[in-house]
């Protein structure tokens, strides 16, 4: 395919969204040797991922498994490319249901398009012999579809596409004979079509929805519009569904302990995704250092495909380094929050330390110092604290986090509106290593989840990390704000660690979708609180957080947070 057609396809056509179980991975890798080579060396996560992000743009050939419903592939346009878009010419209006998928846990996803320029879409009624479900217009996210615009010869900017997701909470019995879809516009006109609803697993459905969302087109600022779309109800539905999925995954955890259960001074909780080498790297670089004999490592894996290797590596590491450790293997990606909460339940100490797999000691005596801090400082300064993290080049990566607002504009049909989004910023990013302003002990609005040390009882009182965020963003700031809300601000103490950011895991398209939802959720939950004296690098509620000198009269406020 030449560049121009690829570009037009990238900008126009709907993204290929279907569950991995419909995709013949083996056939794809056999057919495309370059992709197979990329998968073999780890540059590409899977053939499926390659196809949905890149391969479809290149018109790569693909084989679908038997369980893929042919009619949906046709509607979506995979099977017969270059055919006119479905939607009967003689109907009252043209529309199409392209994808309808349900999962055993009660998730239901529908996507398609409708010519509703004259009269807006009102409802989509799905009728099965066992159940009925109605998506009202407020439940649906409208998306830009350049391919539909071209097909209809549209001259107006109008979002013809739509998708909806609902966490029904009940297992949906899906019959092979299909469901009746009644698509009604506000003027009362309606079209009816029968669609077989595909049945896939909960994790697969979550990832499919997020993948679709990440690649959906919008008029205006794509990120702003996508985050606003979450507020329509989609965000709450997918976040709730993800929470339910995560909890089911945690209930299915497999655990194995290596090295006994004696009481310890600290429990490192390391959430692994996509890479196993951090098991032996962290074991090697943490073990044998002053004070670390009183610590353990709890590995919690969000990558079921790594389970066998992780167990082998943990067993080897235990024999080589002698660090007590526990493996908690989850049957799917439960996300950072749920995984850490699961890990905390296996801790053999009263101090839980969430730490990224790509964090290593810079100060080799950090563990001894950590223990001394916890023993020696007032409890309110150590209930929840972080540490300065450093880049491999020696400069400061950050010394605490603060909040700013981004203000974007959202385009409505008849207006332009403000959209405020919270942005998490880092103190001292790229500063010289010895920037005491940013490394000195002080209360800060939040600390990064790459290293959070928390009193276990306090962690449990706060409910641990929120499990509402998808995969992993904002849980750290959320935990810190919960702590502040309950009277204890986060602190930063000068324990120095390397953070080789970006080397910890592989980022997939669905992660991008999750990040958009998380950004909406965090703003929805905390924007008002942040507006109340927590905004900017020098928040009025935490004098001295930005590193400037603190007036003596304000010292009493440090540690209360209110």
């Amino acid at each position, binding site marked *: 395919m030449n560049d121009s057609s690829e570009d037009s396809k990238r900008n126009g056509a709907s993204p290929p969204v279907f569950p991995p179980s419909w995709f013949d991975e083996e056939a794809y890798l056999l057919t495309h040797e370059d992709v197979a080579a990329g998968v073999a060396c780890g*540059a590409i996560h899977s053939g499926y991922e390659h196809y949905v992000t890149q391969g479809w743009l290149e018109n790569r050939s693909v084989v679908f498994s038997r369980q893929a419903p042919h009619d949906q592939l046709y509607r979506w346009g995979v099977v017969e490319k270059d055919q006119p878009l479905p939607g009967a010419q003689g109907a009252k209006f043209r529309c199409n249901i392209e994808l309808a998928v349900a999962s055993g846990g009660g998730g239901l996803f529908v996507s398609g398009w409708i010519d509703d320029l004259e009269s807006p879409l009102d409802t989509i009624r799905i009728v099965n012999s066992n159940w009925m479900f109605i998506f009202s217009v407020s439940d649906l996210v409208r998306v830009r579809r350049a391919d539909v615009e071209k097909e209809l010869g549209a001259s107006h900017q109008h979002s013809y596409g739509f998708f909806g997701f609902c966490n029904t909470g009940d297992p949906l019995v899906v019959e092979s004979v299909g469901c009746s879809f009644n698509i009604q516009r506000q003027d009362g006109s309606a079209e009816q079509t029968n669609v077989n609803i595909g049945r896939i697993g909960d994790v697969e459905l979550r990832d499919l929805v997020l993948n679709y969302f990440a690649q959906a087109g919008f008029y205006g600022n794509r990120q702003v519009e996508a985050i606003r779309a979450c507020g329509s109800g989609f965000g709450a539905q997918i976040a709730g569904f993800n929470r339910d999925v995560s909890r089911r995954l945690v209930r299915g955890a497999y655990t194995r302990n290596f090295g006994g259960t004696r009481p310890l001074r600290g429990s490192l909780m390391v959430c692994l995704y996509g890479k196993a*080498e951090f098991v*032996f*790297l962290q074991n*090697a*670089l943490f073990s*044998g*250092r*002053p004070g670390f004999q009183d610590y353990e490592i709890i590995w919690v894996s969000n990558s079921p495909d790594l389970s066998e*290797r992780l167990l*082998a*590596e943990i*067993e*080897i590491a235990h*024999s*080589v*380094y*002698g660090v007590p450790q526990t493996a908690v293997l989850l049957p799917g990606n439960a996300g950072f929050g749920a995984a850490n909460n699961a890990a905390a339940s296996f801790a053999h100490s009263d101090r839980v330390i969430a730490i990224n797999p*790509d964090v*290593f000691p*810079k*100060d*080799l*005596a950090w563990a001894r110092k950590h223990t001394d801090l916890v023993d020696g400082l007032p409890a309110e300064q150590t209930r929840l604290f972080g540490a300065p993290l450093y880049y*491999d*080049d020696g400069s400061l990566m950050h010394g605490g986090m603060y909040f700013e607002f981004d203000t974007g504009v959202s385009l409505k049909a008849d207006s332009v509106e403000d959209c405020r989004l919270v942005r998490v910023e880092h103190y001292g990013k790229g500063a010289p290593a010895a920037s005491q302003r940013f490394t000195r002990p002080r209360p800060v609005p939040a600390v990064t989840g790459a290293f959070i040390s928390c009193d276990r009882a306090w962690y449990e009182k706060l409910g641990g990390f929120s499990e509402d965020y998808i995969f992993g963003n904002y849980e750290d700031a959320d935990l810190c704000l919960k702590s502040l809300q309950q009277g204890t601000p986060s602190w930063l103490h000068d324990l*120095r660690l*390397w953070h*080789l950011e*970006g*080397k910890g895991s592989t980022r997939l398209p669905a992660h991008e979708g999750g990040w958009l939802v998380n950004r909406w959720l965090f703003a929805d939950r905390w924007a008002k609180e942040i507006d109340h004296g927590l905004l900017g690098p020098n928040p009025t509620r935490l004098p001295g957080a930005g590193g400037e000198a603190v007036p003596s009269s304000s010292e009493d406020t440090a540690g209360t947070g209110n």
Partner: protein
Amino acid sequence: MRVLLIGVFHPEIVRGGAQQVCYELFEALQATPGIEPTLLAAIDPSCESLYKSGARITGFDGRPNEFLYLSREYDYWWHKSGNRLLHESFVEFLQLVQPEVVHFHHFMLLGLDLLTLTRRTLPNVRIVFTLHEFLGICAADGHMLRRNDRSLCRHASQVRCSQCFPGRRPEEFFMREMWVKRHFEAVDVFTTPSRFMIEHYVDWGLERDRIVHVTNGQRDYTGGHRLPASRGRHNRFGFFGQLVDDKGVWVLIEAVRQLRSEGFTDFVVEINGGNLQYASEARRAEIEAFQKEEEALPFEERRVFFLGSYAVDQLRQRMGRVDWCVVPSVWYETFALVISEAWMFGRPVIGSDVGAMAERIHHDKDGLLFGVGDSRALAETIRRACTEKGLWERLSGGIQAPPPREAMLEGMLDVYRDSASVQPGSTAVSSAVRPRSHRPRTAAMPEEAK
């Protein structure tokens, strides 16, 4: 004293300098009263026929005290095995042998973590590590030869290393350095066969007082008979080694082209060695094309002859065919055994002016040096060697006997015994007392414990 030698490959399975030296030492230790040596040589799955079902460590060819470590699931980037049964078998082997000294000659195919595991299994054992190249410092085959511009590298850093591996980020090299240094902490004494290597490792962060120079030594391959001096013109040159890029045979070929273009053809070059298949595609094509052109010439016009690989017992015959031995390596080398082999037979060496060649060859006294990688300089040196009257006799007469196996043995025994005669950072000859018990080392890591 029970000494366990651990190395990569057995020289009778895969040839190479590190395994040859390790085996020479093993043989020497066997002949030393009061020493009980055991050899454990790692092999890889390419030696499939030697892999016995269910075994991780086996004997070798019915020889007492020689064992093979059947490496599996080896990660060549991190240098470790992912096979936990191998680790179990290694621990069991250590417990059975109960060595007082464990002398590693490599970590390839074994894993860096076996150093730490050895310390954990036998806390009071003396761990010695002979550095046969710079693999701890340099991920590019341990040669410190930059892949982006083929220049010699004097120091490693995460950014410089990532320039040699465009697909990898600096952070990966930062982690690699921490990982290697962490396991090097388990070692009591490092030995290097050349002195210059000490500076490379000290610059990298290894403490000078943990490194001792102990020369490589070989048995005498001449059988006590020195080759007769060649008479008349001394215009026959020999290359001995693998035909891989870093050994620099291509520099020699370019020098031949240069001399031909100048009309100077009164010389012969014999190429002894194989493994051209391991050369880069470009170099292989270049060498193959040259060989084809050369073989198409009338015999009297041919100047270069490719004689193929050779065994140690063929050295006498091959060395007898030449007057000079050319060592045009474009990396540092760490000892260049071929120099010793040439000297055994009284052949002066023409070598690159870096690393082990520069350290061992005394220019204009027992050999000649030329600018590394500089084919024009080599051509001029060859012309001089062919034409300067009395040069060969003078240089040949200046050759000292290469270090014998006994010199290596004595040096290593001093290191094993933690002898007062071992002076860290120098050759194992003079006095300095070393701590006998193992102390954890952290000085090489990025930041000191405070």
